């Protein structure tokens, strides 16, 4: 492998993931579920639209999860599969999906950590299946960008960063 592998996220992937997460949010009364990839990019948001900057949130989530992964290894654990951050009103639960993405669940006192943990297990099983299929098909069916894209992107770069 020379660089990091690219992967693509299609319309039908999005439909399946949204379906799984909507079901999970309905069962638990949690507010929002986000999928963030391990490099810090936001992949999907389901439920109440968050009031914060989701791009910054995704980069911090990935950093948080990666730092904890290293801490786990120092303790002799292969990983911490899940993390929980408790606030006075708002809390978040993070769980690994297929070693490539992170499920983030935001919830408040309308539900409990116990219920979130109970219902997240089947949801994680289904998400793992979807993401594993996505990663396995990579490089074979990713359509890439149109050829005219490159020229236009270069023009935009010149405009934004000064010609």
């Amino acid at each position, binding site marked *: *492998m*020379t*660089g*990091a*592998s*690219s*992967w*693509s*996220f*299609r*319309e039908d*992937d*999005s*439909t399946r993931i949204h379906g799984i997460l909507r079901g999970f949010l309905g069962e638990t009364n949690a507010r929002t579920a986000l999928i963030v*990839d*391990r*490099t*810090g*990019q936001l*992949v*999907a948001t389901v439920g109440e639209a968050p009031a914060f*900057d989701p*791009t*910054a949130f995704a*980069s*911090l989530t*990935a*950093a948080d999860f*990666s*730092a904890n992964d*290293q801490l786990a290894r120092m303790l002799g654990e292969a990983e911490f599969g899940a993390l929980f951050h408790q606030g006075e009103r708002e809390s978040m639960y993070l769980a690994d999906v297929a070693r490539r993405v992170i499920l983030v669940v935001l919830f408040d006192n309308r539900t409990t950590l116990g219920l979130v943990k109970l219902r997240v297990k089947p949801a994680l099983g289904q998400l793992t299946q979807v993401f594993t299929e996505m990663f396995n098909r990579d490089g074979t069916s*990713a*359509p*890439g*960008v*149109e*050829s*005219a*894209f*490159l020229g*236009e*992107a*270069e023009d*935009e*770069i*010149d405009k*934004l*960063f*000064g010609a």
Partner: protein
Amino acid sequence: MSMINYASREINCKLVYYGPGLGGKTTNLEFVYNKVAPGSRGKMISLATETERTLFFDFLPVDLGTIRGFKVKFHLYTVPGQVYYNASRKLILKGVDGVVFVADSQIERMDANIEAMQNLYENMAQHGYDLTKIPFAVQYNKRDLPNAAPIAELQAAVNPGWTVEEPSKHRTVADPYHDSEFLVWQQDGHWIERAPYFEAVAVTGDGVFDTLKAISKSVVKTLG
């Protein structure tokens, strides 16, 4: 690993500024943050110590706009330069699409530059990435200082180049940024390639956008 999200029609690319401590990585991002139109950039996040040394990373998302139906975003990251923060540095490289190495031109920092460059190669290799095969640029910062080393000396130490094994790449490539210099050339029977370089004074912004333009164009090329 640039991710193409066909559902939200987004392409996100990750650029990492790497280099020795106090070399000017954060200053590069701050200048970009202050100069880019507010509508084209997000919030800048800095995980820093009380003395403003980078502890984990700085993060700045920049929005290129919609191109052929895709929203294109560059996520700019810096790493902490101090030697003992290597664990954090390595984490930030995960999924990187392009690297800018910010070297400190001061002659006294020559060893720190070389050490940071070796550390970059090692950390990339540990992720399974090959720095010679992804978009990569070197920025020589602090060119305004009286103790700045000559460019030729810095190039020889920090960016000497690597042997090109692939026969299809055995052809001379002129350096588009410097007259009569080359990015790929033949020397003593070997083909050598090296990263493009830029001179900068990040505190005043000189060279900051030249570097960013070059690396972002190289990254966009890899999407085709």
